[in-house]
């Protein structure tokens, strides 16, 4: 156990940055400039601090590390309890990596209410880290729901023409699921008498109750992932959100669902998990195939990538509920990879959107003539998105499909068709935007990536290749935790077996 409260520091740092930003005075121009610098430096320092987690992480143990615990409401058994294990640690790093990227990506494109914008991002970073690090279910719920507010504002204030519709759709969809989850949390609390997540994992809820709890949590997580058929908020939210909003939304927020399944559904409701796995499989397959076809028919770049996100997250849910080592590790890896790749793809759309103010594929064509570096970066992330070996996208998808195949060959096979369809819609997109003759006069002097934009992409480019060629540093940290998780599920299942038999 570490005595240095690094997780609290990580949650607090962005808020300190926020406080700084709020004290900035002067004319609008100076405020905007200083705000950007403060936000960037805060998020960069935050990232460096978060590396402390990775460096000092002990991959040999499955128990939570960097644990902090302060009594909050002792009478009610609720405490401020933080810690990370091999499942959550990398998500914290994903968050701290993407936030500076977002700040830098918004450097020039956001000119209105810069201060409020950066505050929203920093607060959101703090909340997201809190969500991944929470070990008390009440603390978790506060962070989990809290994230909704800054995201709602980012879409609703800095978004496109239909931003209000999109923001409300996003908010109501997610809130609906969350209300059910809150009920489930109350039920769990009254059954177990504690809000401590580690205790809850070991509690062993009655089989009958598990089904209801599982479904309530499922309602919330399925919306977040998002799973078919509750995915329709995502394309709208992405299309209307500013670029950096899409980046965080796709990069981190979508992982809440996948993470939630791993943190709650699997260890706390193992029987229900096994019972409902076929449902998840079915929805995952539909998500993969259905949204891939829909992506093929899109005319809007952001919408296309949004739909591809749904398809990719379908792999995550299928892998998670395969309950095999490869399936779960693949799912986590896929989430990390998708966090980087989809973030990069939205940034790529953002680059041309900043120049042309259009997301329509029709607007573009032949960009390679003017933007070779852009074309190269786009190519790399397109390949990662279609799961080309040697990029991060391959490892996750491969492990998920391999794991799923051991459990159910049909699921694996049908999900694997997504790999073919993915190639179709991504290559088709790339061809329409990048290749061909540059005939449109408005594109005649479009500029290639600026140094700032290259700085935005550089870390993502490096990561996507490193994660594709040498994944062990990323996989190593999760081995023990995932093995432990699978143990929890199988043991709980074994323990409750006679009971459920007797029940019949």
């Amino acid at each position: 156990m570490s005595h240095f409260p690094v997780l609290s520091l990580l949650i607090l740092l962005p808020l300190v940055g926020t406080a700084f930003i709020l004290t900035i005075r002067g004319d609008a121009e100076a405020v905007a400039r200083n705000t950007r610098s403060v936000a960037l430096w805060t998020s960069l320092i935050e990232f460096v601090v978060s590396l402390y987690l990775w460096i000092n992480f002990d991959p040999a143990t499955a128990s939570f590390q960097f644990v902090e615990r302060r009594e909050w409401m002792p009478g009610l058994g609720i405490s401020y309890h933080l810690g990370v294990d091999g499942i959550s640690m990398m998500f914290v790093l994903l968050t701290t990596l993407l936030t500076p990227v977002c700040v830098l990506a918004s450097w020039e494109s956001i000119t209105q209410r810069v201060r409020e914008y950066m505050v929203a991002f920093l607060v959101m970073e703090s909340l997201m880290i809190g969500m991944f690090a929470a070990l008390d279910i009440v603390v978790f719920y506060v962070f989990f729901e809290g994230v909704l507010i800054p995201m709602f504002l980012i879409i609703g204030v800095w978004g496109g023409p239909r931003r209000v519709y999109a923001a409300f759709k996003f908010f109501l969809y997610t809130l609906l699921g969350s209300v059910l989850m809150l009920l489930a949390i109350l039920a769990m609390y009254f059954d177990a008498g504690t809000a401590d997540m580690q205790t809850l994992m070991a509690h062993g809820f009655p089989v009958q109750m598990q089904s209801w709890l599982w479904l309530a949590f499922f309602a919330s997580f399925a919306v977040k992932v998002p799973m078919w058929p509750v995915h329709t908020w995502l394309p709208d939210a992405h299309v209307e959100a500013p670029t950096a909003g899409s980046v965080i939304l796709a990069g981190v927020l979508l992982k809440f669902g996948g993470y939630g399944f791993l943190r709650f559904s699997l260890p706390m409701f193992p029987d229900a998990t096994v019972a409902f796995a076929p449902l998840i499989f079915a929805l995952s397959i539909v998500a993969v195939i259905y949204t891939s076809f829909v992506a093929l028919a899109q005319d809007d770049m952001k919408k296309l990538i949004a739909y591809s996100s749904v398809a990719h997250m379908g792999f995550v849910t299928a892998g998670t509920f395969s309950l095999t080592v490869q399936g779960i590790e693949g799912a986590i890896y896929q989430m990390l990879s998708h966090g980087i790749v989809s973030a990069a793809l939205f940034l790529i759309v953002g680059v041309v959107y900043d120049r042309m103010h259009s997301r329509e594929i029709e607007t573009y064509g032949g960009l390679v003539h003017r933007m070779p570096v852009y074309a190269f970066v786009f190519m790399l992330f397109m390949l990662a998105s279609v799961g080309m070996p040697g990029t991060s996208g391959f490892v996750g998808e491969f492990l998920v499909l391999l794991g799923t195949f051991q459990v159910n060959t049909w699921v694996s096979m049908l999900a694997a068709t997504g790999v073919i369809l993915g190639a179709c819609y991504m290559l088709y997109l790339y061809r329409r935007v990048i290749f061909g003759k540059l005939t449109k006069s408005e594109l005649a002097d479009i500029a290639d990536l600026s140094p700032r934009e290259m700085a935005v992409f550089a870390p993502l480019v490096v990561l996507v290749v490193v994660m594709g060629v040498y994944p062990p540093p990323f996989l190593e940290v999760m081995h023990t935790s995932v093995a432990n998780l699978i143990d929890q599920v199988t043991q709980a299942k074994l323990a409750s077996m006679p009971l459920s038999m007797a029940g019949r």
Partner: protein
Amino acid sequence: MFATCVFLPLVGAIIAGAFAFARPADEHQHHRIDQAAQWVTCGAMLLSALLAIVIFIDVVIGQNPGTTRLFTWFDSGSLEVAWELKFDSLTGVMVLVVTTVSAMIHIYSVGYMHHDPGIPRFMAYLSVFTFFMLMLVTAGNLVQLFFGWEGVGLASYLLIGFWYDRPSANAAAIKAFVVNRVGDFGFALGIFAVYMLFQTVDYDTIFAAAEGKSQATLHVFGTDFHALTVICLLLFVGAMGKSAQIGLHTWLPDAMEGPTPVSALIHAATMVTAGVFMVARLSPLFEYSDTALAVVTVVGATTAFFAATVGCVQNDIKRVIAYSTCSQLGYMFFACGVSAYSAGIFHLTTHAFFKALLFLGAGSVIHAMSNEQDMRRMGGIWRLIPVTYVLMWIGSLAGAGIPPFAGHYSKDIILEAAYAAGTGIAGYAFSLGIMTAFLTAFYSTRLIFMTFHGAPRADAKVMDHVHESPWIMLGPLMPLAAGAVLAGLIAYDAFVGDSAPQFWGDAIFVLPSHPALEHAHHVPLAVQLAPLVMGLAGIVLAYVFYMAKPEWPNELARRFHGLYLFLLNKWYFDELYDRLFVRPAFALGRHLWKTGDGTLIDGLGPDGIATTTLRLARRAAALQSGYLYHYAFAMLIGVVAFVTWYLILRA
């Protein structure tokens, strides 16, 4: 040394690729950058080829196989995948073929592409293609094989779409990638099944355990199947995609959209041979599944015949050669199907030389004819480009199986093995193979006659410009021509002759109950002579049709118009796929989006609830009229209702 040989092309590709982003200030600088890229890639490739020779001598001739483990790729649970370079006889042969042919193509490209504005990019693509192919053949496990497998698919996508201004090139590139993906889909499932059965993806472990699992069953897709059959069939789907076997062949002829050196690289040394290599590499698995071998045989033989028939009527010079590749790959597959893997690899080797020669020769012709590819607008140029003419004859005769050219030896041994195998399926392969030998000779010589002989059919301006290619292009053809002439003679004994068992070592595994190759040396004289006779007959027929009686082909095409169209349109595969897959996919996508997401999910879900809520709210708001007597009246009704209810309940 292994690593250097494999990674040199990658280093060359990265350096040349970096040059591609340079923004030269003037023409002179532009030229300097191009030259630098050419020197780097050609130098790296030649060095790699030299190392390959050294490795070949050490590993294959010196019988010194070895594996270099680089580092772990990824691991999860009991799955462990490493980056490793495995060199044995099979790999040694492949690496030698790949690097030498690729090096020649690199040098040739310097001449062929010298007008092109994208030279560094082109050279980088060629090198990266070679790198992926080398990773593919030196893989020590199935996942690295898959890496190379997808990698060559990517490289072919880049190269076919090299001229990205052309819509047809882009379409062909996407087609190549997607069709290959369909194959890769099967391949990936095959790997999963292997892992399910063996709990590893490592070749050595799998091969050692294969015999023990030869009777095992695997529960997949709802039924118990013979495990190795399922595995081999799934993996073979991948091989069919990559090696353009019937059904998944449609991308290969379209791949002509790339520059000609690319076609040579795809067709001769890299990519398409990967499927054959894979089946040979996995011979320890395929040997235990007669069903899988039978499928390989049938698919191979059918493809050989189908592609040859189509090749006979095409008019684009590169398209004829493309279908020829497809057909020759069919030969290689049915060789593997009758357990004559080494004969398949033998044909792969000879084919690499003569096919590269044919393509680069065709490139030389196209170069001379001011980028004309249609043979109907060629003719009468053999005196003007004599060196190319001779080289094309060598390539064609080698392909037609005329002794002493290389193709003769390798094709004969395949047909003899098919005959000697003695099963019904092998008989099917043998008879189609013999017919294909006739067709092969026919279309090969037809190509020569149409291109070089007869009256000139190009316009005067083009004819004035016809010139022999520079030596930077002809030079690399010489070693290839030497290979096309001599490779068969030299390698026969080692590959399929008496020294074969010693030559291949443990690299290829054949069960004693599959002695086709041994028996191939003792087939009746008629069988031995049949391919040659058929080949000569094909040449004679081509001579009659295109030299002696040039009006006959048109007459035939008119009389058998249906059949002619059927062949000309390549058995209508493209049209069929377009109707079956492409158009429905887009229609379905639009439908799911508009109806599924729009009308159903949003209509019943969020938007529906929102409008319902609004409507209810409006109704509720309408009740609040503000008139006291409305409220009093409502209250009265309420009281009456309650009283009535109470009374009824009491009664």
